[in-house]
């Protein structure tokens, strides 16, 4: 059996007295579309932060492609192929849509090349331009090319954030509530789009989602989190009939 793409072992994250994640272990296979659900404050975003390196865990290990990345800085994890979006948009709001995407693609020429206008710089910029255009086009965002990111409508900004993450050419994409704030129709079409992307870029997707119908409908495997602990894991049917999950959601809407 091949090694999992991502493996999380006994992960614990504390904020002062608060235990945001307690002893979390799970793994994620290449090509999977894993959903994670849980009430507000369950620790879902914190889990993403730990995987992407925004917070360091107090205990536990994170392995990516068999490599221990627990103490890697965020930018190194991103370069290894872990990309993410944020629950509240974090675009580079005054930069153009094009720049937002180009930025994540890395740099192919030495830092002094632009000053001397070297051929490597011109070639590198041309390539950036082309791949950024292709990527934006696949999201139908290319018409916004020169506009500052904060001038786009909300829904488009959410999609731009996903496009920006994909510019890293990641293997694993962490999506923190990509459908929040979208209408049901928009949400469904976004998820459909993600499904296609996953196939096209052979991506592994890890999705935080509050909309039960969407997770249940699209994610073959789901993890349920509550108060920092995994209370259920399995297919949508298994999750839906798991008494602990039902208990955690009791009183919640949906």
């Amino acid at each position: 059996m091949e090694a999992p793409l991502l493996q999380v072992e006994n992960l614990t994250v504390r904020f002062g007295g608060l235990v945001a994640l307690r002893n979390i272990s799970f793994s994620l296979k290449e090509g999977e579309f894993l959903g994670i659900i849980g009430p507000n404050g369950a620790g879902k975003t914190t889990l993403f932060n730990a995987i992407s390196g925004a917070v360091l865990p107090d205990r536990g290990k994170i392995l990516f492609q068999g490599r221990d990345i627990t103490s890697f800085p965020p930018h190194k994890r991103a370069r290894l192929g872990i990309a993410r979006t944020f629950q509240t948009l974090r675009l580079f709001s005054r930069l153009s849509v094009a720049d937002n995407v180009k930025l994540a693609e890395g740099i192919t020429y030495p830092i002094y090349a632009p000053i001397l206008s070297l051929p490597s710089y011109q070639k590198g910029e041309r390539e950036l331009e082309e791949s950024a255009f292709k990527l934006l086009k696949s999201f139908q965002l290319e018409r916004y090319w020169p506009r500052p990111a904060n001038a786009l409508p909300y829904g488009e900004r959410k999609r731009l954030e996903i496009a920006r993450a994909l510019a890293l050419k990641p293997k694993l994409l962490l999506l923190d509530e990509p459908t929040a704030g979208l209408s049901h129709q928009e949400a469904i079409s976004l998820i459909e789009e993600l499904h296609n992307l996953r196939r096209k870029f052979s991506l592994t997707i890890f999705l935080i989602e509050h909309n039960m119908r969407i997770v249940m409908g699209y994610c073959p495997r789901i993890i349920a989190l509550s108060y920092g602990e995994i209370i259920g894991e399995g297919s949508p049917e298994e999750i839906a009939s798991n008494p602990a999950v039902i208990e955690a959601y009791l009183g919640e809407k949906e």
Partner: protein
Amino acid sequence: MNWKKLLLLAIPLFLWLINYPISNPRLFNPYALQIIILMGVNAILALSWDLVAGVTGQFSIGHAGFMAIGAYSSAFLTLNYHFPFLPAILFATLLSAAAGFVVGIPTLRLRGDYLAIATLGFGEIVRVAILNAKSLGAATGLKGIPILSSFFSVYLALAIALWLCLALLKSQPGRILLAIREDELAAQMMGIDVVKYKVFAFSLSACLAGIGGALYAHWTSFIHPDSFTFMKSIEIILMGVVGGMGTIYGAAAGGMIITLLPEGLRLLLEQNPVLSQNKEFIRMLFFASLLLIFILLRPQGIFGKKEGV
């Protein structure tokens, strides 16, 4: 695109051609030349600050320190060892860049406001160190520095600095610096080694400030630790803010405006004995008020776009 390169070559030629008449006191008012040269020097300093603060979003209030390093190191070489100007400037540039690097590595890991204090501390340390260095004239300053700066050298340096900043901003490294300003954490998550780029911006900025300092020293021919106090750093900030942070041309223009404005003020003040006694305080009050007015009412500066700072 070849006409563009031609134009680029024309700029130094043009500067060189008008250098002669403009430097001749019989053809051109020396007082006006003095101001024009200081405008050029200050434009370089404003650019230097804009690169870290306006473009990269890192607040430095110690730029006078880098300027001092450039001024003193180049003057030390030309005065004591009769170095030609160009190698002296190059040495000053490298030394200030090294200082930027050394200060940057530990402090740029810090959050923005700590960085501000750390750069302030750096500026003070440089000044106190010079004040205690006998070979640098200590409290009497350095006198008799050869006057090697000219209209040509100052404005050529400014043109190069502008070119450098503009080329940088259009390219991937420039985009990365802007992204760090917009959202440092998101930039990290996009695979950017934020500390490395901040140190880069800081060193480059220090190097420009060092050039500014060297040009300044070889124009005024006299430098003193008091020329590089905290107030000088504030003046540099004011230039960047008034011009428009993050706007390259704007910052340079801001440097020129902030040099020119107080001259008018000075002419006014000097007519009244009481005011003229306090002209330094009045000048600083004027600067402080300008700074407040701009940040509160027009944060994008004169040349910035509407989105604001």
